[in-house]
């Protein structure tokens, strides 16, 4: 690969979009040519700095509420197009009576469906904990990017040993840990970063069987929940859902 080609492929290389062959040719050229290496490093630093300072506009909470409200009724409307009743006399009453019964049943079902489940209430708690940790500026009790510092810090403070993994190489650097209180018990909270976003990962022992990740959104925050090897995991952040999904996968959910 020539110096000119290196210039042409700079962005594609930076974005990891070159195919294996071109990418290794690029690597080799950088090893051999100090001028291009310096140029690439300068460019990569510049790019990372600009990207890190690029604002991410999060949707206002009011917009999300409005959308949720709109999504539900418009779906209902579609199948509840009023139908004209051609039944005469008593049949009309019979139809009306059975309709009333159906409505009553529906109302009951909706009530049951609306009742927040234990898991939903826990999800709310997780979001509240996350917000609290950011508001009170009380993210970490042990501030360290080293998993070997964070893990021993929990010893003696919890009745279980949380697995502490640093995912810096995957773009989720560990920045610390702290104790938190969820689901009526003390839990481990690990704090990770994704660009300027903070991810809180809560974990504690759970009798539940292993489960695949479930994603949900509450008040604009994304959550992923899964159970693995008798540990419950809840990841919460304002980072986009696909990044959080990736985070869960990198943790081996």
């Amino acid at each position, binding site marked *: 690969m020539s110096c000119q080609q290196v*210039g042409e492929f*700079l*962005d*594609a290389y930076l*974005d990891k*979009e070159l195919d294996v062959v071109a990418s290794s040719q690029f690597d080799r050229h950088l090893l051999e040519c100090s001028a291009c290496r310096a*140029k690439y490093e*300068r*460019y990569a*630093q*510049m*790019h990372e*700095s*600009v*990207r890190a*300072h*690029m*604002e*991410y*506009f*999060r*949707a*206002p909470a009011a*917009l*999300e509420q*409005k*959308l*949720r409200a*709109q*999504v*539900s009724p*418009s*779906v*209902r409307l*579609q*199948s509840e197009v009023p139908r004209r009743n051609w039944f005469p006399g008593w049949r009309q009453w019979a139809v009306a009576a059975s309709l009333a019964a159906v409505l009553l049943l*529906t109302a009951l*079902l909706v009530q049951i*469906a609306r009742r927040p489940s234990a898991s939903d209430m826990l999800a709310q708690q997780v979001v509240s904990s996350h917000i609290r940790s950011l508001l009170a500026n009380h993210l970490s009790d042990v501030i360290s990017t080293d998993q070997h510092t964070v893990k021993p810090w929990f010893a003696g403070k919890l009745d279980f040993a949380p697995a502490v993994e640093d995912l810096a190489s995957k773009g989720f650097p560990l920045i610390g840990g702290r104790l938190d209180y969820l689901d009526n018990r003390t839990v481990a909270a690990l704090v990770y970063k994704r660009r300027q976003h903070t991810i809180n990962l809560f974990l504690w022992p759970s009798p539940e069987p292993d489960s695949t990740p479930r*994603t*949900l*959104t509450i008040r*604009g925050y*994304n959550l992923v929940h899964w159970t693995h090897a008798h540990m419950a995991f809840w990841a919460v952040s*304002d980072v*986009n*859902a*696909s*990044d959080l999904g990736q985070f869960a996968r990198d943790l081996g959910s």
Partner: protein
Amino acid sequence: MAKEVRNTRQELFEETVLPYLNSAYNLARWLTRNQHDAEDIVQEAFLRALRSFDTFTIGRDARAWLLSIVRNSCRTWHRQNRSRETTVDWDVDSQPTLAEWSDPQTLLIKNANSELIREAMERLPFEHREILILRELEELSYKEIAQIVDIPLGTVMSRISRARKELYLLLSQPKGELAL
């Protein structure tokens, strides 16, 4: 029975598409450059997505699907509001290449804060702003971007290069000399 089907469709929409609200809003906010129009566009885009949700096959990338709806709405909005345009109009090819940039220039770029970056971004043409948001903030692959913007893969690559060069050149101008 009907209720069950209805609920699953609604739940499915809430589970697969609604989580990308922030992605949708972020793109619309950058492309319209104001909160009010961004909210309107996102709201309209979600309703449109809901209406055509039956054509969406499960397993497809919901974020890419939603973002293509949002960017198309923004594109229409942009055509109607073109008069507000204050973007740069220059030939980047005639500008110095990276190798010729001075150290003070690159330092200015590296030290640029969020506000300066936003100002510079807002001066980029629509297509360049769009592709940078999809790449730098949504971190989408060239292939995903090609699908959303509906352009060939090769164009994605050259457009990203151009857009970055424009942005970095704008940022490398000392303050007050942004009038290019």
